[in-house]
């Protein structure tokens, strides 16, 4: 068994491959196109299709705009669809800034893209072409979704997920900054906010129906959800009903961007604290990962193998992931270009790569 780690950075796309998840062979930046106009693009979204193994990369050239590239040979060669794969219809008077997220449906070939400006697209041909999910774009709340400092985007897409025990093919949870969390139970035909309990300290009503700046939502087994908010860490088994419970007690801070749910243990999750909205640095200037094994009731450092010297790179919202293996691998990359991997059953973190450009996103899979 081999493992593929795909790393999107501010300046290009890298991959790493390993047989044992301790030693890694890193390659990149990959040439996305022969002319190299895209090879130094910022890669904000990567995805590995669990059905086909196709790797998708959403990259944004500062000159020539955004697009999507795909590889069917684990990153060796890349292809761009002949027509713009993600484009807003003419009547929307909108244009794509960038793709923020790829997620895969149960049906082979079904790919979702969360994008900026706030929108969701769906592909049924493996990511070669996408169509706008109209009901979310036409949602009456959209006029009140606005961009935070990172841009206004649907950055989290969780197909089939609604909450504990509610998985169904026509359901989905998405999250956006700002706007919050929305869910559909009818394959995208209608969407309802699911933010009860999540704070929005930047609004007059600190617990509004919607409008929160949710940074990332991660789904664990059975549909349990963990959310890292713009201040606040939450867990929910029933977002649309009971809402969300604050679980940041025990973390050094309640701010951050990334959260990862254990793929097999609903009570286990990983958090990557950041000092505050004003100070985007790691607490105590130390690279730290925190782990809960009791559903957020307590958190403890998970740092063995990480640098002990002062460290100033944080983990961005898609800068951490799991490979979903039986003994799951955990991965994260930092804004200072270091990438680490650990296995749940292992003794700590191993460095995959160092001195890369700032890491924007990582995704991993057994291949």
């Amino acid at each position, binding site marked *: 068994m081999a493992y593929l780690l795909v790393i999107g950075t501010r300046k290009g796309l890298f991959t790493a491959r390993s047989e044992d998840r301790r030693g890694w062979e890193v390659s990149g930046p990959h040439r996305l196109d022969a002319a190299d106009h895209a090879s130094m693009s910022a890669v904000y979204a990567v995805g590995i299709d669990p059905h086909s193994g196709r790797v998708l990369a959403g990259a944004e050239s*500062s000159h020539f705009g955004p697009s999507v590239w795909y590889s069917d040979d684990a990153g060796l060669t890349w292809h761009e669809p002949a027509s713009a794969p993600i484009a807003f219809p003419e009547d929307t008077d909108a*244009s*794509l800034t960038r793709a923020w997220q790829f997620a895969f449906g149960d049906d082979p070939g079904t790919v979702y893209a969360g994008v900026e400006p706030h929108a969701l697209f769906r592909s049924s041909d493996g990511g070669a072409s996408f169509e706008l999910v109209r009901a979310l774009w036409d949602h009456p709340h959209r006029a009140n979704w606005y961009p935070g400092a990172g841009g206004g985007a649907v950055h989290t897409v969780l197909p089939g997920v609604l909450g504990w025990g509610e998985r169904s093919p026509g359901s989905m949870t998405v999250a956006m900054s700002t706007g919050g969390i929305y869910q559909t139970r009818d394959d995208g035909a209608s969407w309802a906010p699911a933010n009860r309990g999540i704070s929005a300290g930047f609004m007059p009503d600190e617990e509004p129906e919607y409008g929160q700046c949710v940074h990332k939502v991660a789904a664990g087994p059975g549909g349990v959800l963990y959310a890292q908010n713009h201040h606040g860490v939450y867990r929910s088994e029933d977002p649309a009903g009971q809402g969300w419970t604050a679980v940041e007690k025990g973390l050094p801070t309640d701010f951050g961007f990334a959260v990862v749910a254990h793929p097999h243990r609903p009570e286990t999750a990983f958090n990557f604290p950041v000092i505050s909205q004003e100070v985007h640095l790691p607490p105590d200037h130390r690279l730290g990962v925190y782990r809960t094994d009791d559903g957020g009731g307590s958190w403890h450092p998970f740092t063995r193998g990480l640098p002990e010297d002062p460290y100033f790179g944080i983990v961005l919202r898609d800068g951490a992931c799991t490979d979903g293996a039986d003994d799951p691998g955990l991965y994260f990359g930092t804004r200072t270009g270091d990438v680490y991997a650990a296995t749940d059953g292992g003794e700590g973190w191993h460095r995959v790569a160092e001195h890369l450009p700032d890491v924007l996103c990582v995704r991993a899979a057994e291949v």
Partner: protein
Amino acid sequence: MRVTVHLPGLLRADAGGSAHIPVEVDDGTALGGVLDALTSRHPGLDRRIRDERGALRRYVNVFVDEDECRTVGGLAAPLRDGADVRVLPSVAGG
């Protein structure tokens, strides 16, 4: 009338490798019409230069003879017969 569009190296692959492309358009056609005619022949080129609303990308400059088009009407900039249209990446990138 006939104008010539000059492409930077980075975009020539989207135009079959051509660096200088003559474009025949009706007299009085503005810059946007020239780009329409050009990209109807080379569809992959359009999304590099303009977004899906038809707006020029922020860091793509298009010169009509010596004038950057944004200073002479943008995509409505008039052209003369024999004009040179140069597409150039602006100050950004890599």
